[in-house]
């Protein structure tokens, strides 16, 4: 198969996946028990008419298939709808939430990659040593801790030194750009740390096993026989080949950044996409849920696609 054929096939597959996900998302939330207007209409001074007024306004009085057609049509025109609960465009709500999530989650992920890859390589290199044992056990432990539990423990023990909620100190008066940066970085510390700790263990374990596999290959033995220095064998010969599974893992986990944010953002009251999803679920805010899940789907599919492309680049055998 030629390179372009491969890419076209992967891209087409990605697009179909997104479409299927859009459809499933639409019906999924509507088969959930509980309806959207009930929550909004439980207001002490409201009249009984509010329920009907809301249903009509949100188009919930139309048949389901018609709502679906309207939704698809609007989506193709780039309109994600209006949030039921705050009456603002979903795209605005999501843009704002995503802009808050990405710096925090990306920092956590990058730190996780750095720690995970280096401890993984080191563990494989010094296999069986005390350090390998400590590092591997720590990785397994952090990998298996429930995210929200770890987040709470971090919050309780570290919050005297770092802010435990929100993105910035609203009472900081006219900060210079540097002061503002420091303030946001301090707020980001605990959630990003949690993010990094929950992610890194998996990286360590995968990198370690990939490395062990390549370290046992004949070409590594050859390199040793040639008398190459140990460091060179590890970095040039073994690590490059161990990169393959690692890349896939990283690309895939990038796609789940947004999803992984839900628990962490809830604990640290971070005003990002995870928080928005949580709120939308409790309020049965269908347009927000559809929008947020669309973003989730697209990010997962997109990074899968990137992983495919990278794979292709890293390992030419795939085309054969």
């Amino acid at each position, binding site marked *: 198969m030629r390179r372009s054929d491969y890419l076209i096939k992967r891209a087409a597959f990605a697009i179909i996946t997104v479409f299927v996900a859009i459809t499933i998302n639409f019906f999924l939330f509507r088969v959930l028990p509980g309806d959207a207007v009930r*929550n909004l209409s439980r207001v002490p001074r409201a009249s009984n008419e*509010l329920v009907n007024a809301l249903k009509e306004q949100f188009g919930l009085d139309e048949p389901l298939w018609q709502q679906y057609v309207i939704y698809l049509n609007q989506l193709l025109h780039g309109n994600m709808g209006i949030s039921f609960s705050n009456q603002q465009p979903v795209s605005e709500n999501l843009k704002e939430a995503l802009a808050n999530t990405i710096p925090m989650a990306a920092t956590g992920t990058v730190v996780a990659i750095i720690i995970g890859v280096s401890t993984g390589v080191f563990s494989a290199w010094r296999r069986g040593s005390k350090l390998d044992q400590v590092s591997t056990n720590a990785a397994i432990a952090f990998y298996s801790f429930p995210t929200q539990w770890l987040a709470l423990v971090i919050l309780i023990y570290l919050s005297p030194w770092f802010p435990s*909620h929100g993105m910035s100190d*609203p009472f900081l008066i006219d900060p210079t750009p540097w002061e503002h940066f420091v303030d946001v970085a301090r707020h980001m510390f605990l959630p990003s740390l949690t993010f990094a700790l929950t992610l890194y263990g998996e990286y360590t374990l995968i990198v370690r096993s990939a490395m062990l596999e390549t370290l046992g290959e004949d070409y590594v033995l050859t390199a040793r026989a040639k008398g190459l220095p140990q460091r060179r064998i590890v970095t040039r010969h073994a690590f490059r080949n161990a990169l393959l599974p690692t890349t896939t893992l990283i690309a895939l986990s990038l796609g789940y950044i947004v999803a992984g944010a839900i628990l962490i953002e809830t604990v640290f009251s971070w005003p990002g996409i995870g928080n928005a999803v949580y709120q939308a679920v*409790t309020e049965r805010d269908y347009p927000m849920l559809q929008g947020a899940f669309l973003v989730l789907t697209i990010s997962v599919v997109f990074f899968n696609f990137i992983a495919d492309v990278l794979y292709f680049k890293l390992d030419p055998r795939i085309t054969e």
Partner: protein
Amino acid sequence: MEPRRRPVMHFVLPLVLALVASACSGSSGGGGDGGEGAEGGVLRIGTSSGLTSLNPFVGFNQDDYAVWMYIYPSLLMYDTTTPTYDFLPGFAQEWSQSEDGMTVTFETVPGATWSDGEPLDAEDVVFTFEMIKEYEKTQTAQWAGSVTFLETIEATGENTIVATYDRPAGTALYDLGLTPILPPQVWEPLAASKEIRRFPNEPEGGEPLVGGGPFLLTEYRKNDIALFEANPSYYGTKPLIDGFGLQFFRDEDAMITALKTDQLDAINEIPPTAVETLRSAGMEVYEGPALALRDLIFNVDPEGQQRPELLDPRVREAMEYAIDRQAIVDTAWLGFATPGSTIVPEGNATQGVSWHDDDIQPLPYDIAKANEILDSLGYAKGSDGIRVADGEQMEYEVVFPLDEAGAGDRAFRIIQQGFEQIGVRLVQQRLDTNAAWNAMYDKGHYVFELAMWDWFPAADPDFILAVLTCDQWGNWNDTGYCTDEYDDLYTEQKEAVDPQERQRIVFEMQQLAFDARPYIILTYDRRLDAWSKDWTGFVPSTQGIFNNFSTQSLTSVHQA
């Protein structure tokens, strides 16, 4: 719409000066000995409910209502320092209701202005209610309750408003008095273009939201913070603080930690489990009556209830005898609750009278008595100890919405154990709040067996009394209770202008509901708020230190 500003904080000059000043005085440990506390400073309040929208026709959280109370004028307020919540002058200095209850007159503060300099007078009040009235079935349905039976409202002078009703209006002062007055310069164009609900009503371009209350909203970030500064052009007594911030927490433990580590100054409502932690950390914890009740609900809709024995009031009475309320108070609520009796909670008092009937006492915990009643009805116990009624075991599903989790779970287990001793088995059906309602009501009928839920009644008892009326079938009514007798009394109390007369009817309704037992009221909550000892002067209420009853709390709070 303009994208909201990134967190480059812009704060107005008075606040800057104030914060510097407060930082200086704060480090010296505060005054204390002089009695007079320091003025100024910015108060940081934590809340776990958060704002849904700043638009009064969209937002529905308790905090939304409290924000409107602080940023918009209201004709009247409730004086929460008095035990019966007497009316307090707001934008109206004087008010009166004609003897027949058909006419209400308000005299407003002369020379008031909105924060943008536009005059604030009787015309604005008239505008607000006429707008609500005009769109009551659509865009303004959320406040339609404040214009029920209102026939006309007009400004007979710059500062005089006269409202007339088509029948005696017992709740007129509450309906008109406690509704936010909105600036016509903002809302008139929106009403004309049917954009009332679409309007975000948020500060834009560094300008505060046009308001007329003691505080102005200067900054708002969804799910994060809302910032307020004192309104220099406010017509009433100006606040002592320069401003306050509301910070939203998704996680209660994180919020408690924030108060302990000086990242917050006060928390509006803490869970009972946090009381000891905060007290031992040196925080002030307020405890008082709350407008909140927890109830066991019976489906009494004769066409929807599939278990005929539950429609028998004697069975429900037996079940009440099997509930150990004191154990629920002590174990589930750690003592921060009181045994419940009627649908109007203790502490619900306005207009100089208490609406809760103290003479109605819950049935005592008496397993023998409960068994005696069920035996007399012929429901014999089977070999497994569970009674049989009409050929079926007395085992019932209890719809349990997740917002009752925690204390509610513990309460459920206590009830379950009590019922076991009378040969009745309960199965908890945990559902999220939206799903719970769906499990209870379907296609015009109530379809559940039992449920456990809560009510947070409004200041005026009218609302909580309404939930048992036929008119609320499928809406607020969650039991299927519907009788002419109760409905007639409901209408009668609404038209009773004399508070004493209304009280008599409200007591009668409580007795009626208590005897019919569509609900067993388990407990009334205690209100718990906490703040740092660096601050003093909060005015607590049945809705806490940040409430929509009055602006007293945050206009009198100051640094210790």
